[in-house]
């Protein structure tokens, strides 16, 4: 394992940022770095169960390119990171609260539960924090 774990805080629902978070998380996780992903604010929307690609991914010009070229799906990359590496994903409890969502409305098998920001930030003191 690499000395410093990587903490990725995602708060934008922009497709390009979700894609970058998924790429960083999955590649770092399979490269023997411990990865912890925290999904908050609008970034929670794309993680809702049962959406089509167009409903799930909203973004700028590059988002359309990612869809047209069939770049690896961000949700699939998060899943691969968890499957093949040492990675956890948590949904922000505040984001779920304000939306009135339950944890079971999120894509199955992706999340390790809900977490508060305080706990995530406290854990992140031991590693590198990236915010998207």
């Amino acid at each position, binding site marked *: 394992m690499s000395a410093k774990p990587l903490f990725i805080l995602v708060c934008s629902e922009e497709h390009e940022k979700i894609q970058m978070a998924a*790429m960083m998380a*999955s*590649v770092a996780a*399979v*490269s*023997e770095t411990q990865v912890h992903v925290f999904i908050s604010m609008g970034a929670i929307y794309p993680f809702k169960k049962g959406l089509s690609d167009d409903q799930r991914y909203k973004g700028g010009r590059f988002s359309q390119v990612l869809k047209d*070229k*069939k*770049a*690896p799906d961000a949700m699939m*990359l998060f899943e*691969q990171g968890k499957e*093949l590496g040492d990675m956890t994903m948590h949904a922000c409890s505040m984001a779920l609260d304000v939306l009135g969502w339950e944890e079971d409305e999120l894509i199955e098998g992706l999340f390790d539960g809900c977490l508060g920001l305080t706990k995530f930030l406290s854990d992140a003191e031991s590693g590198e924090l990236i915010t998207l």
Partner: protein
Amino acid sequence: MSERKVIDARGAFCPGPLMELIAALKLVQIGDDIEVLSTDKGTVNDVPEWVAKVGHEMGETIDHGDHWSVIVRKAK
């Protein structure tokens, strides 16, 4: 007797070929080779970087013109 498995990741974009390689490595024996076919230019640099970091062995990288073959031996 070592074996070679071919992964056809042509048409997949970063980090698709790398993820396919890693998934395949989990399923083969130590000493076996995986040959990744890729049209993604980044694969030629990314795979050796990953292999060096995690401790497998890099084999040949062959430029076929319209795609590359990147060969990796499972070392652990």
